[in-house]
Each structure stands twice: as structure tokens, then as C-alpha cells.
């Protein structure tokens, strides 16, 4: 089934936040932010700004009736800076005016005097100064100390990987309208309506039942609107509460880039030990996560880094440690993969370091250590239904990797200026929120007595095709046409206490709840039909009732009407909580994931060794979808995730200067892949597997895993550089921008 939104998208009829029709008298809010990264605020002079044409009010911390606090995990983040600022882009005041332009004019007239304090931007420096978001955490398996003595080879090294701007094409935004009795509705471009609701209530000092959050769809999220859609929604709500008027904010791109957090940069030290037959016997890694100035989701991101610190490899002796380091940058946040990619990057760097030192291909080490059925990971989960080797071998065989390798070697022997590089990237990614309590969802289904159906879940549509998958569940359960079903906006009045749409789990959690709701309604409808067709097996398909597999005269519509007249409930609300998962943080052991997703990708790149530029010739993938319930949408997630991951590894370079100023602060200086930067060929094959019972319709979660195929792009480029400059000692420091490529091509050995 094609994405159900596609028709409206191509006609320009889909409604995003800034497309909502404004109520007459709507005001505009503009966040006013700090221009230094760390300082005490000595004074704020609003006088001239307040006199600016069109300005209605300017709100500061003291205007907050509830708590000035929006920290989700730890209460360490004020909505509006109060007395001091901890990063450039931290919001100090909210300017409200009749037009956005007036607010921008006023912003230039606000004068803030700062007493500047030292700025830290480097996570290792923060760790040295004990500037930590929380105490470090450590996962441990086996005994590395005794394992080192059994290793034939031991290598140590360091890897660095930069952050990534989400660059959802729709910027952050929200629109608040006061309702009666002090309650409020906020339309928010958020992945987490409940998180927004909670913070609006907390800051405004009202109970959650007075706050309605509504989300139709997002123009891209990628994690950037999981936690960081919240401040803007709270700001417009605060202004609307003050002024009793509708207030809207739709952020300017440069404001958005400057004020919001990104994927976490990480630095890591690793030590890897192998036996003669290339089995990895021991691995120790210490991660330094650059969290930014407040916790945001960093503790959870750090946790997922630890969970993925050995990627798809079985290593019997592991110590994985991580520090969440507090720096004077905007608080970094969720981004597709959520720390997992950084964990994987470090182990791949360690394997490459070992391979290069031993003069073997990294692929030999990767292959020799892939996880197998029954292997235990560092956090105690025993793997079942493992497809790592199956995916690897299928990928090698189906794409004839041996021939590709020969062809590349031959090319490199004949060419000076152009060199090709290959890299293989296996993945193993755990599905579930690592915080067990978040793995639940609800769905609300109404069947109206004309036979039409409306569905609400806690899931947010952001292009991933969630609504299409939800519709498929309804249509298949009831045997009715898609035109009978409408998937409604995500709204906290209809579905409460939701987890954000994140962790790739949106379809599994909401879909399972929806399946339960639909099945309950189906049973009630069947019972109504059963009264006429006694002792016969009732089925619903093609909008008709079938009795003992024979089509009856009774239509879906008539059945629904009959149920209604018989006073049968045509509404169902179902609750689903993932079974089997648990985790004990005190022991750092448990079974946090419902299942894992596997796959393997082969990258081929050509580097122009004169200019340091590169083109990707192909990426060939074998992916474990389980039984994909929508191959069109799922393949789209693979292609899009891969390219986003490749962007992170190649072009996308976040640059802060040492004073915490974002230098790559616009699309002119921060480059995401365009149509010419993507691989010439992307092949995707579906691995034939049984799927997993805990995946919706056995169709495995697909949002985040493919991003991590992108890591292979980095190492493919490295291998091409090595073909040109074999003896240089190269750092591992992503992204591989053309600058770093050229410098490495000509680095003296």
C-alpha cells in the first residue's frame, strides 16, 4: 500500500503546523536567545524593544506562574534562562507581537549585559573537570583483566565522531489557543505530545487535564522533535495564557539550528584483544558523550550507546563505560539511532585498527565474530532468532562480493588518481525503549453507525508511514475498504499518557494496541452476526459478512447499524505493554529489547585523489525486515536511513568554535546529502526469515536500524585513501569531509 498521505502531499494539501489557519488576532512569538555560551546575566534592558511597533509583551523567567523547568529526565533545564546562561542559543525571553517581523525588529533592540564565565565545548575536558550530567555507567561481561593475557594481539586507539543536525525540512513550531476556564489547546510539531502536555502544565502551573496537545503530522522529526519540540510549545502556551490570545511560533531555520541540540558527538578510547584466528576475546571502551548544557535525553542516549557497544559481534569479555559530559553547547538530543550509532562506530574503529595493524581485511574480523543464537551480550540479554550470519552470508553471495573485491583491487592497481574503497557494515539493533516503563501504547477506535471508522493512537506521523501501517491493520481486521477508515491526529484528549513516537517502536506499540482494539470490536460485531447465522463461522471481508465461507447478504454497513440498534458498544480503547522485557539498572543486566534487527551492507566508493572528493558507486544491502507488512514503505525507510547515516559520516559537519558559537549555522554552511551525493545504486534485498512475534504482524521495526549501515561509508573512504597513501597513520574522526579526505591522502607517513 502506498503511503496514504501521498496524494495530499503531492497536491500541497497536507497540513503542517504553519499551515493551520490562524484565528483572527493571532500573535507571533519569537524566542530571544543568549549570544554567549556561559555567563551570568547582569542585566536585561527591554525598554526600547517594548516600544517597538507591534510588540505586545516580552516574557521573562519571572513571568512563569508554574515551574521554570522543562527537563524531561532530570530537572536541570529552565524554559527561560534565569540569572545565568549555559549555552549560546539558550532562550532568555519570549517576544510577542502582531507579526514575526515586528518581533525581529524588537529582538535587535534588547540589550543584555553578561558577566562571562569559562566555556567548555570538549567532552573530555568536561570529564576532566568533573562536569558530568550524571555518574558514569559501566556494562561488564566476563573478565577483561584475565582475558588480555590470553590475547595474541592487543590494540588501543581512539575514535571521534561528530554530531548531526536533524534538518527536518519543517522547522520547530507550535500554535496555542486559549480555551475556556484556563485550559488551552496547543498544536505542536512534536513526536511526543504527552511530553509537551506535561511541560505545558508544569510551566503554566495548571493540571494536565487543562492542556490539550494536538499533532497532525510532522515535516520530518528524526528524533529532533522528541524532546526538543517541547520548549516552543510551552512558550506559545505561556504567552497565550498571559494574553488570552492565540499565539504562534514557526521558527526561522537559523534560529532553529542555533537553539536546538543535535546528535551527540562522541569521543572514545578503545582497547581490543584478539586471538590468532581473529576472534575478539576482549574489548574495553570508554565513551565521552558531549551532552551539551543540560540532560535532555542524554542519559538515555548514553544507555543505548552502551547497549550497542559491541554491535553485531559476540565478545566474551567486555567493559563498556560511558560519561555523559556537560558542555556549554545546546543540549544534545535524540537522533535516529539514539546513541547506538556512536557505540557501533567505536567498535568498528577498533576492528579496523586491529585489521590494519595485522594486515588483514576488516571483513575477516567482522565475519569471524558475528553473533550467533544463544550468545550473551554485555547487558545480559541472550540473543534468539539471530540473523547476523545469515544476513552477512546472503549479502556476500547474492551481490557476489568476491568479484567486486577483485574488480576493485584491479581498478586500484591501474589508477593513480582515482581509488576505490570497499567496506562491509553489519548491524544488530535492539528494538524497545531501553527504559522499560515506556514500552506501552493505546489505541482508540470508533465505528460510527454509518460504517465509517476513525482511529486515534499515540503514534505521530512524520513521514515514516505509521498512519498507513495503522490503516492496514484496521482494513485487514475488519475486511473493509481503506476509504472507510480515517486515521486522526494524535491528541492527548483522545489518547493519554503516551510515549513519544521514537525508538523505531511506533508501529509495534501502537499497532499492537490497535490490533487489540480492532479485534475486540470484531468479536462484538461477529457476535451480532452470529445471532442470524447461528453455529456458523463468521468472517468479515470485502465489506460483507461471510458465514462458513459463503458470502451473505449482510454488508459491513448493515452489520454496524444492526450492532448500534442492539446497543452494542462500537468504541474500543485498548492498551498494549510489551511483554518479556525487563532491565535492572543496579546490576546493568536484563532483557531490555523485545527483539533485534539484523542486516549487512556493502559500500563501494571512488575517491578522486587529486581533489579529495568522492562518489559512492553502490551500497548493496540485505536487511532483516521479518515479514514486511509494507515493503514499499519499509524500503523507503532503508534508503532514507542509509543516506542520512551516510550524510552523518561524510558531508554533514557541525562546527562550533571554542566559544560555543555554531559556525555551521545555516543550510549554506551545513550540507546534507542532495540528489547527487547519494550512491549511484542502492540495492535492497529482504532476508527471508520468520519475523518476530513481538513485531507488528511479524514486520520488524525499521526506522532506525538502516541509519547505521551508513557507518560503512566512512570506512570505505578510509580504505580508498589507504590504497593511495598506504603508510600514513590515519585518525578515526568522522565525518570524512572532502577536507579530511584530502589531508589524509597527503598525510606524511
Amino acid at each position, binding site marked *: 500500500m502506498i503511503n496514504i498521505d501521498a496524494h495530499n502531499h503531492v497536491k*500541497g494539501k497536507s497540513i503542517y503546523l504553519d499551515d493551520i489557519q490562524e484565528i483572527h488576532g493571532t500573535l507571533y512569538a519569537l524566542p530571544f536567545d543568549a549570544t554567549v555560551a556561559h555567563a551570568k546575566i547582569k542585566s536585561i534592558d527591554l525598554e526600547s524593544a517594548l516600544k517597538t511597533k507591534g510588540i505586545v509583551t516580552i516574557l521573562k523567567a519571572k513571568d512563569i506562574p508554574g515551574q521554570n523547568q522543562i527537563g524531561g529526565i532530570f530537572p536541570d533545564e529552565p524554559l527561560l534562562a534565569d540569572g545565568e546562561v549555559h549555552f549560546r542559543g539558550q532562550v532568555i525571553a519570549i517576544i510577542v507581537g502582531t507579526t514575526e517581523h515586528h518581533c525581529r525588529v524588537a529582538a535587535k533592540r534588547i540589550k543584555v549585559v553578561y558577566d562571562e564565565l569559562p566555556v567548555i565545548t570538549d567532552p573530555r575536558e568536561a570529564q576532566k573537570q568533573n562536569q558530568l550530567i550524571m555518574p558514569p555507567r559501566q556494562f561488564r561481561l566476563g573478565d577483561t583483566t584475565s582475558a588480555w593475557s590470553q590475547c595474541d594481539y592487543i590494540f588501543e586507539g581512539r575514535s571521534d565522531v561528530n554530531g548531526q543536525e536533524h534538518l527536518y525540512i519543517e522547522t520547530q513550531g507550535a500554535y496555542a489557543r486559549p480555551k475556556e476556564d484556563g485550559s488551552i489547546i496547543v498544536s505542536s510539531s512534536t513526536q511526543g505530545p504527552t511530553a509537551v502536555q506535561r511541560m505545558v502544565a508544569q510551566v503554566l502551573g495548571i493540571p494536565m487535564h487543562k492542556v490539550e496537545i494536538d499533532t497532525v503530522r510532522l515535516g520530518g522529526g528524526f528524533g529532533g522533535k522528541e524532546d526538543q519540540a517541547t520548549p516552543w510549545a510551552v512558550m506559545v502556551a505561556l504567552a497565550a495564557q498571559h494574553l488570552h490570545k492565540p499565539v504562534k511560533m514557526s521558527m526561522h531555520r537559523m534560529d532553529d539550528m542555533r537553539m536546538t541540540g543535535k546528535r551527540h558527538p562522541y569521543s572514545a578510547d578503545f582497547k581490543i584483544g584478539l586471538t590468532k584466528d581473529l576472534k575478539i576475546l576482549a574489548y574495553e571502551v570508554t565513551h565521552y558523550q558531549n551532552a551539551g548544557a543540560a540532560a535532555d535525553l542524554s542519559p538515555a542516549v548514553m544507555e543505548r550507546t552502551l547497549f550497542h557497544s559491541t554491535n553485531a559481534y559476540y565478545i566474551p569479555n567486555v567493559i563498556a563505560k560511558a560519561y555523559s559530559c556537560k558542555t556549554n553547547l545546546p543540549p544534545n538530543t535524540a537522533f535516529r539511532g539514539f546513541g547506538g550509532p556512536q557505540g557501533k562506530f567505536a567498535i568498528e574503529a577498533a576492528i579496523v585498527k586491529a585489521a590494519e595493524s595485522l594486515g588483514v581485511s576488516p571483513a575477516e574480523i567482522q565475519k569471524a565474530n558475528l553473533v550467533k543464537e544463544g550468545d550473551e551480550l554485555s547487558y545480559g540479554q541472550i540473543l534468539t532468532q539471530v540473523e547476523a550470519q545469515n544476513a552477512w552470508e546472503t549479502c556476500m553471495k547474492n551481490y557476489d562480493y568476491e568479484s567486486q573485491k577483485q574488480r576493485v583491487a584491479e581498478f586500484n592497481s591501474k589508477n593513480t588518481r582515482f581509488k576505490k574503497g570497499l567496506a562491509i557494515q553489519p548491524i544488530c539493533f535492539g528494538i524497545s525503549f531501553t527504559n522499560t516503563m515506556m514500552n506501552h501504547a493505546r489505541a482508540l477506535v470508533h465505528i460510527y453507525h454509518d460504517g465509517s471508522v476513525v482511529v486515534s493512537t499515540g503514534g505521530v506521523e512524520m513521514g515514516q508511514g505509521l498512519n498507513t501501517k495503522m490503516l492496514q491493520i484496521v482494513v485487514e481486521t475488519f475486511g473493509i475498504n481503506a476509504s472507510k477508515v480515517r486515521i486522526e491526529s494524535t491528541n492527548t484528549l483522545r489518547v493519554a499518557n503516551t510515549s513519544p513516537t521514537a525508538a523505531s517502536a511506533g508501529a509495534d506499540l501502537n499497532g499492537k494496541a490497535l490490533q487489540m482494539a480492532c479485534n475486540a470490536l470484531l468479536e462484538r460485531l461477529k457476535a451480532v452476526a452470529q445471532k442470524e447465522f447461528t453455529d456458523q463461522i463468521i468472517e468479515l471481508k470485502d465489506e460483507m459478512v461471510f458465514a462458513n465461507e459463503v458470502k451473505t447478504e449482510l454488508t459491513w454497513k448493515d452489520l454496524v447499524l444492526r450492532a448500534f440498534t442492539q446497543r452494542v458498544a462500537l468504541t474500543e480503547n485498548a492498551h498494549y505493554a510489551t511483554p518479556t522485557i525487563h532491565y535492572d539498572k543496579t546490576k546493568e543486566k536484563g532483557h531490555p529489547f523485545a527483539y533485534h534487527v539484523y542486516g549487512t551492507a556493502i559500500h563501494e566508493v571512488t575517491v578522486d585523489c587529486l*581533489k579529495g572528493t568522492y562518489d559512492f558507486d553502490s551500497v548493496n544491502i540485505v536487511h532483516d525486515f521479518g515479514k514486511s507488512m509494507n515493503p514499499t514503505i519499509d524500503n523507503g525507510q532503508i534508503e532514507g536511513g542509509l543516506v542520512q547515516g551516510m550524510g552523518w559520516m561524510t558531508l554533514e559537519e557541525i562546527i562550533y568554535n571554542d566559544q560555543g558559537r555554531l559556525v555551521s549555522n545555516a543550510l549554506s554552511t551545513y550540507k546534507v546529502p542532495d540528489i547527487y551525493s547519494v550512491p549511484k545504486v542502492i540495492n535492497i534485498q529482504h532476508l527471508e526469515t520468520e519475523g518476530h512475534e513481538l513485531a507488528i504482524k511479524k514486520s520488524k521495526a525499521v526506522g532506525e536500524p538502516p541509519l547505521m549501515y551508513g557507518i560503512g561509508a566512512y570506512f570505505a573512504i578510509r580504505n580508498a585513501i589507504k590504497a593511495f597513501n598506504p603508510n600514513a597513520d590515519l585518525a578515526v574522526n568522522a565525518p570524512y569531509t572532502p577536507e579530511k579526505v584530502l589531508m589524509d591522502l597527503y598525510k606524511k607517513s
Partner: protein
Amino acid sequence: MIQFILNNRLVQTDRAASTTLLDFIRYDENLRGTKIGCREGDCGACTVLIGSLKEGKAQYISATSCLTPLANVYGKHVVTVEGLNLPEKLNQVQQAMVDCSGTQCGFCTPGFVNSMSGFALTCSEPTVEKAISAIDGNICRCTGYKTIERAAAKVTEQLLQKDQKNPLSWLVANSFVPDYFLTIEERLKEFQSDYSFTGQIPIGGGTDLYVQKHDELHDMDMDYLFDKKELNGIIFEGNQCKLKSSVTVSDLIENETLLHAIPNWYKYLKLLSSTPIRNIATIAGNIANGSPIGDFTIILLAMKAQLTLTNKENVGRKVMLKDFYLGYKTFDKKKDEIISEITFEVPASGKFNFEKVCKRQYLDIASVNTAMVVSLNRNTIADADVSMGGVGPIPKYLTETSAFLIGKELTATTVKEAEQLLQTELAPISDARGTEEYKRLLARQLFFAHFITLFPETIKIDNLL
């Protein structure tokens, strides 16, 4: 009052001429299909089509509405995604995007639909490569582009049947555009041709000014040059080419004379920004912007370009482009002068090369760019002009390096010696586009690339490195 046709409707507005077309479309006209992604021409979410009469026929270009002042659409036909919708079904571009799953979150989609529809309207010999080129200014963060490429291929296949004698009728009959498009030519002819948005600050396409000074332009008194008849035209006299100041990059990219003289002309200009920007960005604007890495400026420096500066009294004077830049964004230009003409020597075939490296190969600003015009007398360099950008406060004509090359034998040694000298002419700084060290290395590599590209038989990479 500004008037133009917006989709199928005449609009007349008293809004300031400097208002961006994007804001007008979205908030005055409430057409919300056109999206705001970046407001600096770098994402394409706000792409619209602009049609104007050329020799009596409506000709369409794609353009970023975020950088287009209302003045520049006076008397034209502006098409948003709503104006491409058919009453009963999807148009062919939309259908291809749906069939190939070229849309995920959908926010960038109207921009893609517009760009691809622009291709349908303008293409004469459609190829997939050209169709993809038409969407080179559109950024998508969801799909990874492969599905969009497939949609472009599907559209191209249909367009191979396009009747080039009656293109518009064919496009209407084959559900590419709604039938009101057939009425546009007649309606455009009804507009008065007088164009009178004059003011103080000269502005061409607006592609730089609206990025740099978006907020201030609200209240500025601007002199809109883009559509002034006397400022448009390309004239060839011998080996001299004369450009009027409002000539755009797109006007030049498919110019037959230049394509003939410089075989890689299209390939070079393809490295400059994106289709919707090239469609409205003027050559004079690139020069007057004075960016140290202005691509076209670098090209023109090597082609010995001369500027004509004209003041309000219409008195002109000439200045060599290489003498025009006095320092960072300061010029040999009086406040009331505009660049009215640019004259340059068209290099003989095989004598010109342009190199540009940036983070992203397309739609990006150079870390270093460089151009060279060189001619040989047997194996001796008879003439050489080398320019380089990103290596100092101004776009640089490399006087000493150019002079050094003249009279030397074309050998790897000469090139290496010249490169040593070249480094003394550079003063790059570390910034978002690279460290000083990188820019120096890149300058060397691209200088070598000129010779490797132009003289593959004589100068080989192995002899230079």
C-alpha cells in the same frame, strides 16, 4: 501597485515591492502548499514556477520564492503547487511521485513537484539526467532520493512523446498542467510593459541580498534591475562577449556560442548553485556581491573581464574586473553606479578550465575555486590567466603566477614551480569552509588539475605529486 497572474487568477497588491513572493503566497494569498524550509534558497521547499513572455511565448523558470521580491514577478505568471493541481486527478508529475513513493513526510514534496513540472514545461530533448538536474535545488531529508529519481525517470519517459511544436497543448492534453495554462500567453500580453520600480539600492535576482539582509529589506528603497529591458541581453562581437547586467547564469549555461567554445561549459556552470537559483541569479549580482569565492567572478577574472559602471546620469566608465576589488567587500564603485555591462574574452576551445571543491559537489559554496585560460605556442605557454577564490579577502586574479607561466615550456617542472609562486599570492583563513592548511593544499591540487585536465598527454598526475 504590483500585478501578476497567480495560478489562474489576476492578483493586484499594494504590498511593498520588496515583500518576498513566498510570504505573499503563503500569508496574503493563503496558498499554504508552498513551504518554508530555510529562507535562503538552499532547500527548494518554496520553489515556484515563473512564466513570462519571450518572443510572444510564455517561458517558465523555476525559482525560490523566498528570495524573489514581488517586483520581480510584475506582469508574470506565478505558479504554485495549487496551480498545478488538476480538478479530478493527479497530474503526471504528482502521479509519478506517488507511484514511486517519492514522498515521505511530504514537506519538501510541493517543491519537487514544481521543479519537475518546470522541467516538463521547458524541456525540448528530455533525458533523465536533465530531469534530475531540474530538481538539483530540492533537498529531501527522508527518502534518500532514489524513489524521486525513479519518479523523474517515469516523467521523462512520458515527455519523450511531447509535441515540441505545440508543447503547451500537449502538456494540457496529457495531464501535465491544467487547461488554464492555454490562456496565459494572451493574458500576459495584456499587462502594460512599463516597469518602474526604481529606488536607491540596486538589486538583481535577490539571491544574495535576501540571504544577507532578509530582515532589513522590508523597509529598503530598492532599484529593481532584473526586468529592465536595457539591462538584459548577450552580445557577441568577435571573440568578445558582452553581458548586460541582468543576464542570469541560466541564460548562459545553455548559450550555444559559449558551449561551442568551451566544451565543458555546462558542466562548469552546473557547479554553481542550483537550477532555481541559476534561473534568477545575475552575473552582475555575483560580481557586486564581492564574495571572495564568487564562482562566476572567478571564471570572469580568468577571461579578462571588464566592467562598465554607469551612474544615475547614465555616464559610464570602464574598469577591469581584477582591479574592481579593493578589499573585503569594498569596490572601485561609487554609490550611484551600477554594473551595467560585463565584457570578456571567449577563450578558444580547449583553453579554459574551471575547478571547484566544496563539501558537497553541487549546491554548495566553494572551499577553493579557480579558473585558468591558457594558450600554447607549440610547447611554450603563450598566454595564461589564473584566478582563485577562497584564498584571500577578494576573488583573486593571480598576477604573478599568470605572468610566471608566460614564455615557459609546458612541463611538470614549470607547473610545480608556478605552484610554489602561487602559494605566495594566497592568504587563506580558517573558517567554515576549511582550515588554512587545507585551502593551501587544495589550491595546489586544483592548480595541478587545470594542467592535468587541459594537457592530459603532457602533464600527468604522477609527475606532479
